[in-house]
């Protein structure tokens, strides 16, 4: 009983405190002349979203627990950074962004349930979230039913397009084709050995890569294609097959804990990546943290972003990220793509002059973001991003050295003709 009393007192105190705190922004905002420029809530929110005169609510929906927390932590961090920066710069349409974070817990039905909660109970104006294709596929019907907006950060297999999703990572052809062309031209590579984890993304990506190698690169062929179950930790057999077939390039899309095992065993088997070409589409700076720089130095990765990129935007972004999340954190491709989400949404809302999902969706194509750490990006009609493709070479310290980038932005093509 006494405990309950105490709790009651505490929560009453907390409520008062909160009321007091809520009054602070209102007080500070009143005298400002800019307040008058802020559009009325009724004008920018006609569908009952959680938008007030001072605030707009967004959801962050990633796995903070479970096996995927390894990968999704970086995305959560950069989304929070972007939102903090936007708030510092005055928010969106005069409203500060309020975050409601939900945990998908690496479980796909949980993702769907939490998405529904964010859309139906919290009425969030947009969701930044999902990482695996499986979680996105689980959330998609919920988004379409309740008309929500998702900014999805991961590079993925393509074959999808929705009014309710903006894909800020690369789809497969964007990521792969330029890299294969480069390694063929630059290193004269003719034979390719594919190794991947056994699920939809590596299988689709390798299908595209195989078609490209066989049909568009003259005299090239695929000498092996191998898949291992997710979480596999023993790669000695496939490494022996690689030794037997002696391919010019090992092309890999192994993910998760298997990644670490694969590169450690490759090195232990005497395959020297300074001599053997290896092109991966699944290793970012985040993964190298676990693999260890000495095990993967010399390998090439094909992505759109590396932490070491030398441009003015990235020079601001990297220190800001480290200041917020610690000196030791690294920033991989997906982390950067997640950072784009809140900014693209802000620019779109300002162009549309509204938070309404239909208007955001309609206004999205053509939105340009000049402040992206990867450099200029633009949203395509198909809700994917125009972006450059880059090849980096892994160094001992776990960073990539940029060795190639496409001259122009590569057009996103989620339903590539001739590759299916």
């Amino acid at each position, binding site marked *: 009983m006494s405990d309950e009393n105490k709790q009651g007192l505490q929560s009453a105190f907390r409520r008062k405190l909160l009321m007091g705190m809520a009054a602070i922004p209102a007080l500070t905002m009143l005298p400002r002349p800019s307040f008058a420029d802020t559009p009325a809530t009724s004008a920018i929110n006609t569908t009952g979203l959680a938008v007030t005169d001072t605030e707009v609510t967004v959801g962050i929906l990633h796995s903070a627990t479970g096996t995927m927390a390894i990968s999704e932590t970086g995305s959560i961090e950069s989304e929070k950074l972007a939102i903090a920066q936007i708030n510092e710069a005055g928010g969106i349409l005069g409203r500060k962004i309020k975050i409601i974070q939900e945990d998908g817990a690496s479980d796909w039905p949980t993702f769907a349930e939490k998405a529904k909660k964010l859309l139906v109970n919290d009425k969030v104006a947009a969701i930044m979230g999902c990482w695996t294709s499986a979680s996105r596929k689980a959330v998609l019907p919920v988004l379409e039913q309740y008309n929500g907006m998702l900014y999805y950060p991961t590079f993925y297999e393509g074959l999808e397009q929705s009014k309710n999703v903006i894909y800020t990572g690369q789809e497969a052809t964007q990521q792969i084709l330029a890299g294969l062309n480069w390694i063929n031209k630059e290193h004269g590579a003719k034979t390719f050995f594919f190794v991947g984890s056994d699920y939809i993304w590596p299988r689709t990506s390798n299908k595209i890569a195989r078609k490209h190698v066989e049909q568009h690169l003259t005299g090239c062929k695929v000498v092996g294609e191998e898949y*291992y179950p997710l979480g596999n930790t023993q790669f*000695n057999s496939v490494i022996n097959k690689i030794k*037997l077939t002696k391919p010019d390039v090992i092309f890999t899309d192994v993910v998760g*804990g298997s990644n670490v095992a694969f590169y*450690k*065993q490759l090195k232990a088997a005497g395959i020297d990546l300074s001599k053997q070409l290896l092109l991966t589409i699944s290793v970012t700076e985040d993964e190298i943290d*676990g693999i260890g720089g000495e095990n993967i130095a010399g390998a090439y990765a094909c992505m759109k972003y590396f932490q070491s990129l030398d441009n003015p935007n990235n020079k601001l972004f990297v220190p800001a990220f480290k200041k917020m999340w610690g000196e030791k954190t690294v920033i991989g491709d997906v982390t950067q793509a997640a950072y784009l989400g809140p900014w693209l949404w802000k620019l779109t809302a300002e162009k549309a002059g509204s938070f309404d999902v239909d208007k955001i969706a309609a206004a999205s194509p053509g939105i340009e973001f000049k402040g992206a750490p990867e450099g200029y990006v633009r949203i395509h009609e198909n809700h994917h991003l125009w972006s450059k493709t880059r090849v980096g070479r892994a160094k001992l310290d776990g960073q990539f050295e940029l060795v190639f980038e496409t001259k122009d932005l590569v057009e996103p093509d989620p339903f590539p003709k001739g590759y299916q």
Partner: protein
Amino acid sequence: MFGDYSIGDLGSIFVMQGFAGLILFSVYVLMALGLAIIFGQMGVINMAHGEFMILGAYVTWMTSNFFQAYLPGLFAGYFFLAMILAFIVSGALGMLVEWALIRHLYKRPLDTLLATWGLSLILQQAYRSIFGAREVGVELPQWMLGSLNLSDSIQIPINGIFVMTLTLLITAVVGYLMYKSRWGRQVRAVVQNRIMAGAVGINTEKVDRYTFGLGCGIAGIAGSAFTMIGSTGPTSGQLYIVDTFLVVVFGGAASLLGTIASAFSISQTQSTLEFFLSGSMAKVITLLAVVGILMLRPQGLFALKVRK
């Protein structure tokens, strides 16, 4: 598939593939030994086995960091100390868990499955809170990396040889403890008849605690060794648990020899199939074979009498 390759090439590959099979065998034995002791001797289904392994891996990671920061001159040898520490830490946690949780469930062995599964979730979240959600990279001394060149085309991974040696050593020690030492006799006596063992003056509680601790400690050593070949993250332990149970159940609980025989047959089947088929198909066929044999022989390859 071999038409295009020279005899010399093929010879080298078969030698290396043979070693790949032996390395897989050692890995299986190492990860299954701790479980074989706990599941076999005590009838406790320890679902948190993988988490005890990862605890060993984290201990190795911390030791490595410590040596890099304070004793860089001795870094080449830190791994041995790390394995001993891994044994002690995992073993100590094991004994604590036995005292706090497992001993209350000896009469309900099936419930240990649920309790230890819960424990595994708690440990995973604890690792995540303490060490962060991301994987950590364990830096190894230079001599443990790379491979041994037997000839121009035959390379044997040094870490594989290390794991094989370690497995031999630990198996020998466990074999001695179980079948030659006084303590091993006590353990087996408790397995066969707890009440009688107590009546003749064996402290059964103590035997239980040390047996569980030993099993967890060996898991810790396995985890420490696996930092050479696998990942270290909060949920990495889950990668091993299925294979571990497969080996122990297939071998027949309670039998050390059974565990070794089953690890050997599973690893050889798998590595041979992996070479001729793809990795996923090899796994499917291996599992089918194991399921088939277990249907015909539910008690496993080698079965002894177990505490009922």
